[in-house]
């Protein structure tokens, strides 16, 4: 089973995940959730570290622009992730392993669909070889 490290912002996406659960929306158990106060709290170093340690994919989800509990957290995050994508793609790291989304507390359905979407994308890829910490 693939393993996706999910950084979910506490006020929106994490609540969205709760709603998905409460509403019994089915989604594959591929995510390992890390609850963060805001998508702006996610230091790109965490994404590098998650991939380095062998995650099949990383996913950061936060509030829609304008809904951020801290007003501007997701705006900062958006810039960081744009640069992260650009750099990883530039050096040739395979696409389909890094996901960003805005999911509000009321979008339980979208949360479940997004997880399904990520599973499909990650299933297409072979097991991780690039940028992997040695472990044996």
């Amino acid at each position: 089973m693939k393993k996706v490290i999910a950084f979910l912002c506490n006020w929106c996406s994490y609540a969205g995940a709760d709603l998905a659960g409460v509403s019994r929306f089915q989604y594959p158990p591929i995510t390992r959730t890390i609850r963060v106060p805001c998508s702006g709290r996610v230091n790109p170093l965490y994404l590098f570290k998650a991939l380095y340690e062998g995650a099949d994919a990383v996913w950061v989800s936060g509030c829609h622009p304008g809904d951020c509990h801290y007003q501007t957290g997701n705006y900062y995050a958006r810039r960081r992730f744009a640069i992260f994508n650009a750099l990883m793609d530039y050096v040739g790291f395979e696409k389909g392993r890094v996901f960003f989304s805005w999911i509000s507390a009321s979008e339980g359905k979208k949360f479940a669909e997004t997880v399904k979407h990520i599973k499909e994308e990650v299933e297409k890829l072979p097991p991780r070889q690039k940028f992997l910490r040695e472990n044996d």
Partner: protein
Amino acid sequence: MIERIREEARKAFEEGKIEILIGFGRGTLRATPIFIEKKEDVDKLIWDDTCWINLATYLRRFRGKKTGIVAKGCDARSVVALIAEKQLKREDVYIIGVPCQGMKNEKGEEFLSCRYCEYPTPPVYDVLVGEKREGKKENYPDVSEFESMPPEKRWEFFSEEVKKCIRCYACREACPMCYCEECFADSLDPRWLEPGLSLSSLQFWHLVRAYHQAGRCSDCGACERACPMDVKILYLTRKLNKEVRELFGFVTGLDPEALPPLGTYSTEDKEEFIL
């Protein structure tokens, strides 16, 4: 040119504008940084096409003192970037701007950054020595060329280059923007990446070091020039400079008041990559 620099330096000392001046003097192999504290020593200053290290990296050591710096275009932009990040006060730094003729390595080849240099004349200075020089329109042809290669080839190039690295951190110590108290690479608690020369650790080091320069790098090339193992790393930071310009319309080191791009935001930023 050298005479004019010495003249400006002497004047700055006489008018009490500086207590110490960082410039280039004659070295045994090439120009070497020198630190002048007395008017009489200004005649040690020289200027030629081997002044390729970025002197701004020394400024933080003299904080609180009136410090002069003989700065080519990229050096001056690094000073501005440091001021924008509140590391230096504009009034503490006296910039003797030198329109740069482009620097060369020991084989006489012009460095990559200089070939495409857009700001040979310092955008911010206290005094300018000699006529302004026009830069070239920067459109990062080397980056576009690299981008045109297939992903596998790019990853292979990136891996082959970082394999040469021995983690002596000359790139970090030569960069004026690398001034963290404790670098993420030295942190033990948590330990982000492993020590040693395994491919993944070397990739981790060079990716995250470059990432930290997004929107802060003046493309002076000191990192690649300082590297004893000739590891190509400038193409990483030049790519980020290109991204930052396209995405956020920002060029490092032009305006001491402007916040670095990742230190601010805009509601209109593109987000097509967000689900």
